[in-house]
């Protein structure tokens, strides 16, 4: 392989975070005129690797060559000057100002010291838009008036204006419809023909096979696979992403599933989010709702507990139809929901542990209109000891705890609520392995006591370790069901992408 043909050559690049090696001696090469897909599960290190490339870390190790020349990418400006263009998932455009002002931010042409040469600016903007197939778009309208797809393309045009030789795209299609994806792809192919090296990050297998030339797979901070797309297949990629089964971290769960149905959804629909969802949850069961981010898994939970509306269908709790107007009703009936973001939705961080743990049960323990937390100190102590919250001090403010212990406080809150059915949305995101184990044991124990749980998680090993059954959700539709014996990271990932033996639509 001739050196000169490589647009990007990262050699033995590592990036250490406190307590974890996020990128571990990774080699990553992209040729000119190549679309190179980068794949891996959440936490595999692909975004960290790309952040190194974007110059967001000044303490990476290893060497980076761009067009054969050794470069130091210690700051975003250095990266930009080296020819790296980043297109992020979240757009960096100011929605209320015009397209041309967005495109030419920081380099608007001037007539003289005071005035901007508007005509020239508009012409410059038109030229950039031409490159991404938006020649017909009026650059004077504001970004908020154009479609998501067009905005994404404007974003690309903006990045292209800095004349990068390497373009990094992070999930550029995540918010686009299928026709829009096609449009996006034709632009990406055109850029490839111009000799641009493109790094394409995506979770969608289909897209990778449609557009990429080569694919690199990362797992646990390492490069574990690199192949031409034409010489690999989905099974192989999934196998590489998942790796050897990591086991024994999850002890065998005692099978506590009974035949008693506690919760049943019938034809449950919120237009645009999830459609005709049917499933049953049994006493003593942990049911996983498996799907990619954006598949509608969180939305089902929110509609069920009365936070969002649903348009069609019914929910039955212990055989009785329920239709909650607010979350309070759901809790008093016996359905709880552990939110995915503990800081924004889960906990009052500036308050002590006891206020948080008891926040769901104020009405239950009120005497008439009177209430005091002090009446339930024993309950708080019991729950935080059960969850091994450290330090086990109920008067301590929650924001002085580590992330893992905050999550344990959140779990203790729901253990204190003592509901029949608990829906857990990403119950262990961003917590250490120890806290994870404690939380998993708590979920198991809780279910063994005759309750039931629904788990929503992007952490595949977590689902493999916990779930008794999984229903597969894709684009808002239930497309299959995986029994306990069949749940592996492999089958979950295939099913979430609409492939494999468990998909029956």
């Amino acid at each position, binding site marked *: 392989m001739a050196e000169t043909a490589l647009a990007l050559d990262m050699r033995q690049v590592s990036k250490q975070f406190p307590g974890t090696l996020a990128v571990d001696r990774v080699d990553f090469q992209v040729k000119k005129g190549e679309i190179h897909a980068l794949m891996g599960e959440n936490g595999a290190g692909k975004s960290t690797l790309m952040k190194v490339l974007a110059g967001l870390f000044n303490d990476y190790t290893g060497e980076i060559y761009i067009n054969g020349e050794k470069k130091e990418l210690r700051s975003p400006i250095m990266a930009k000057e080296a020819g790296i263009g980043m297109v992020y998932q979240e757009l960096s455009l100011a929605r209320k100002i015009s397209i041309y002002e967005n495109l030419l931010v920081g380099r608007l042409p001037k007539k003289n010291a005071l005035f901007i040469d508007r005509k020239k600016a508009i012409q410059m903007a038109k030229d950039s838009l031409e490159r991404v197939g938006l020649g017909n778009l009026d650059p004077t309208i504001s970004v908020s008036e154009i479609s998501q797809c067009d905005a994404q393309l404007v974003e690309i045009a903006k990045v292209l204006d800095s004349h990068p030789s390497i373009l990094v795209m992070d999930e550029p299609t995540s918010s686009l419809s299928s026709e829009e994806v096609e449009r996006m792809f034709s632009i990406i192919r055109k850029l490839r023909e111009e000799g641009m090296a493109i790094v394409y990050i995506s979770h969608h297998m289909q897209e990778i096979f449609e557009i990429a030339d080569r694919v690199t797979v990362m797992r646990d901070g390492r490069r574990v696979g690199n192949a031409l797309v034409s010489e690999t297949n989905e099974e192989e990629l999934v196998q590489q992403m998942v790796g*050897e089964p990591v086991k024994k971290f999850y002890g065998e769960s005692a099978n506590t599933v009974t035949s008693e149905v506690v919760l049943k959804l019938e034809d449950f629909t919120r237009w645009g989010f999830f459609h005709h969802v049917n499933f049953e949850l049994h006493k003593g069961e942990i049911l996983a709702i498996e799907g990619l981010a954006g598949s509608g898994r969180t939305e089902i939970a929110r509609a069920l507990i009365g936070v969002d509306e649903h348009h069609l269908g019914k929910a039955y709790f212990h055989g009785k139809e329920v239709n909650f107007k607010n979350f309070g009703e759901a809790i008093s009936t016996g359905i709880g929901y552990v939110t995915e973001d503990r800081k924004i939705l889960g906990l009052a961080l500036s308050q002590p542990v006891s206020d948080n743990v008891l926040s769901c049960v104020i009405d239950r323990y009120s005497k008439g*209109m009177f209430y005091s937390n002090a009446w339930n100190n024993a309950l708080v102590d019991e729950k935080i000891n059960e969850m091994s919250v450290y330090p086990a001090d109920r008067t301590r403010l929650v924001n002085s705890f580590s992330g893992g212990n905050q999550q344990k406080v959140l779990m203790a809150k729901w253990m204190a609520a003592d509901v029949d059915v608990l829906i857990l949305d990403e119950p262990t995101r961003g917590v250490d392995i120890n806290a994870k184990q404690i939380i998993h044991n708590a979920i198991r124990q809780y279910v063994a006591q005759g309750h039931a749980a629904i788990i929503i998680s992007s952490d595949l090993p977590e689902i493999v370790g916990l779930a008794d059954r999984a229903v597969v959700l894709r684009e808002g539709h239930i497309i299959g069901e995986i029994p306990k014996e069949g749940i592996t990271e492999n089958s979950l990932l295939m099913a979430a992408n609409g492939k494999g033996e468990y998909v029956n639509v």
Partner: protein
Amino acid sequence: MSDQNKTVLSPKTDTRKTEVNKGILLFNRMGIWVITIALLILGTIIAAANGGHFFDKSNIQSILEAVALYGMVAAGLFYVTYSGNWTDMSIPLTMAMAGMLTVQSINLGFPVALLIGIATGLAIGMINGFMIGHLRANPIIWSWGFNLLLSGIIRVGWGGKQLYADTVAKQTDFAQHSAQTFYSISRTYIGGIISLMAIVMLCMFVLSYIIHAKTSFGQKLKLVGSNYEAARFSGINCQKIVMMGYMISSTFAAVGGIFYTALRKTASYENGTGYDFTCLTCVLLGGTLLSGGKGSVLGTFGGVLAYGILNNILSWIGIGTYTKYAVQGMVFLLIVFINTYTERKLGRS
């Protein structure tokens, strides 16, 4: 392979340090009493230097009388700030409107007129609470605008005139007696020493304390004020809780407005001018965070006392009204600054 498994299992320790500064926390809770004592000492010195006695019966009386009205309003306004909605800008016209309607209905007898005045506050609180709690209107902009609307209603409704209870009252013994009773409420001294207004203020603080510290509403309001979304995802009906907070605030303000009107013997759209910022200063002085969820009724009481003592000291020094405004403005801004600073130090949700 075993090496790789180890990588998977290696703990990702959370290394963030989020220790709360204990000194700041203590100051946030107790600071107001330190300030109050310091002001008392300062007052004693300044009064002595001016040849008077700060702890004189008449001086204490005048401090208590002066803070009574602020106190009544602040005891309620606390709930708006505590709920995370900063402040209620319609406080002045809530007070004015309650005074107007009390005087207007004086012919029905004093107790009925009093109830009508209080109900006025309750109704205004419901409207504010509905708009801000349910429809999520910006609390400052809405209540400020509503203040203007109320002012317009009073001026149009009464043709810009001021109302006097004894002229509104018919020439019957009953009505005149009602008017005199109304005037007397701000001029009654229990045992000849302590003003009825001060007693009422203390009672309102006790009531406010019980609501805040001993009821399920108070506990829910604490969570709503700290993190609205987290409270919602704990099954708390946040909209209802915020609305109740506004109802308490406006009702307390109405009581303050009635006493104010009785004291001035005049009901007018001007009654209550300045109470918005003065009472907010008291609430913030007491350690209540501007963004909600932290603070206490006892602290607010301390804030009211400190503010009263400060004003008293200013009169001992003998500075003019204009200078007084400047000092009050500076105190307000300083308090807001300290408040924001402690908040940052305490770490927010």
